[in-house]
């Protein structure tokens, strides 16, 4: 058996699986988004019609789609900086030479990352319970009036952000922690000899040292947060007053509640393009910062 043939046999199963169940559906998503694929087409392809860009056109005129888009952006803009900020603080604390039991703290902060999102969403729904939840009880101890977290359109999305930050900050913390440990000790040593303050050291040694990793972490976090779905599905069913309806939730309902699979594919594609643009923008900003 030639090496060339052996190599192809080694990659064939993976390429076949990816081709059939990933690349084909990606192409399929675009094609389906140009059709009126619905329940009738699902049972008999003869009912399928090509409609060009009509799905995109009607979507962009659908206030509910814009609402979902706005909610998703709100979640990303609020959640991503909070997550990354907290991850950075946690990484700095765990990395601090003053800290004890560093490995234990690292494990504790990381634990929420491996938990099942649906399960912890159920738990947090209970913590957010307006009457019996622990959060309102804790807030009452410092004199805050009870908040109807899941029932008030102003508070439902912030509540979901709190859950997401709790669940995810440990992930970026681990990556940032590794990056922190890669910053040469001599730099800190030199800063200390020069009499730099803690803030100056952080601003001029730690942040530049983290630079590219911070950019990577921001992109990963934002891309992840654009895919908001399980939290509103479990905690609020998109409500109240559609205040937690995300783009993916909208897609799910279009596709599997109303069986407008063509329209749902268009939603998926628009979300993808959006995420792609945001990623490119961040890369560009990141490069400019690096040059400055």
């Amino acid at each position: 058996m030639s090496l060339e043939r052996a190599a192809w046999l080694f990659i064939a199963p993976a390429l076949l699986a990816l081709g059939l169940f990933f690349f084909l559906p990606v192409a399929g998503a675009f094609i389906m988004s140009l059709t009126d694929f619905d329940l009738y087409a699902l049972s008999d392809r003869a009912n399928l019609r090509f409609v060009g860009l009509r799905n995109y056109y009607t979507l962009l005129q659908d206030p509910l789609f814009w609402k979902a888009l706005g909610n998703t952006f709100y979640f990303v803009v609020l959640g991503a900086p909070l997550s990354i900020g907290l991850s950075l603080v946690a990484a700095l604390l765990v990395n601090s030479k003053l800290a004890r039991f560093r490995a234990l703290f690292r494990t504790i902060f990381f634990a929420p990352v491996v938990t099942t999102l649906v399960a912890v969403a159920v738990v947090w729904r209970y913590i957010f319970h307006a009457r019996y939840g622990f959060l309102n009880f804790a807030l009452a101890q410092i004199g805050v009036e009870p908040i109807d977290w899941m029932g008030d359109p102003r508070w439902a999305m912030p509540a979901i952000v709190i859950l997401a930050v709790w669940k995810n900050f440990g992930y970026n913390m681990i990556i940032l922690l590794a990056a922190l440990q890669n910053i040469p000790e001599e730099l800190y040593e030199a800063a200390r000899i020069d009499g730099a303050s803690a803030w100056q050291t952080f601003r001029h040694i730690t942040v530049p040292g983290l630079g590219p990793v911070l950019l990577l972490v921001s992109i990963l976090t934002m891309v992840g947060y654009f895919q908001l779905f399980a939290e509103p599905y479990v905690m609020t069913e998109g409500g109240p007053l559609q205040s937690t309806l995300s783009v993916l939730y909208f897609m799910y309902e279009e596709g599997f509640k109303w069986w407008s699979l063509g329209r749902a594919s268009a939603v998926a594609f628009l979300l993808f393009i959006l995420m792609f643009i945001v990623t490119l923008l961040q890369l560009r900003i990141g490069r400019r910062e690096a040059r400055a």
Partner: protein
Amino acid sequence: MKRTPAVVAVNAILLFAAVVTVFPLFWMLSVSFMPSGAASTYPPPLLPDAPTLENYRELFAGQAAGRYLFNSAVVATLATIISLTFNTMAGYAFAKLRFRGRDRIFQALLGALVIPAQVTLIPLFALVKELGLVSTYAGVLVPSLATVFGIFLIRQYALSLPDELLEAARIDGASERRIFWWLVIPLLRPILVTLAILTFLATWNDFMWPLIVLTSQEMYTLPVALAGLSREHVQENEMMMAGAVITVAPVLILFLGLQRYYIAGILAGGVKG
């Protein structure tokens, strides 16, 4: 270590943050042992007065939790075994075997990492329906048979295997298959454990695709079943906490046992699986 104010402050903040982080999981566990209705009181009770297993009994006897647990275990185990096999074969080939188009194919695969899996869900459902696999284990498994991330992870690790070793085995007349199973696999062991645990946890925790493709209740995985139950039984917090415990406990225990490998995977990839 001296007890300077800075030491006290850093450790106090860490301790406070740790308590806040653990609290939801602690409360989940504690409330799961409370009798029905006990947790719907104010102020919220921290510990059960009279611990009971009635919620767990109800979940397993009345709600088929055993079946969901079994489904989750089957799906996560199969996904892990199959994708580990496919990804390892491909990752090794991309790293160590020479063939035409190798680098171009690998670059194309890496490029696909920017495409979120959610884009594929709707056509994938149509495809799975066409294949008659709706509401089957095979249907849930199809998107996780092979992953770009897994191939990438294995390739990065396999690049460090010494070529001389493989060449020596070839000169001794070993077949490529034999070299792979008896030489390469043992050398890749640490990264295989890492990828196995990443895959198992990701499949166990996966929600959106199973929710779409599993239409009959007896095929539900734990997250899908729990999401459904929690919508039906909004008021029964104690039972829902027990359901959350059943769902979270296996992966949390697995993580605590193998966290070294898990964290190595995150650092090697920097990408979610």
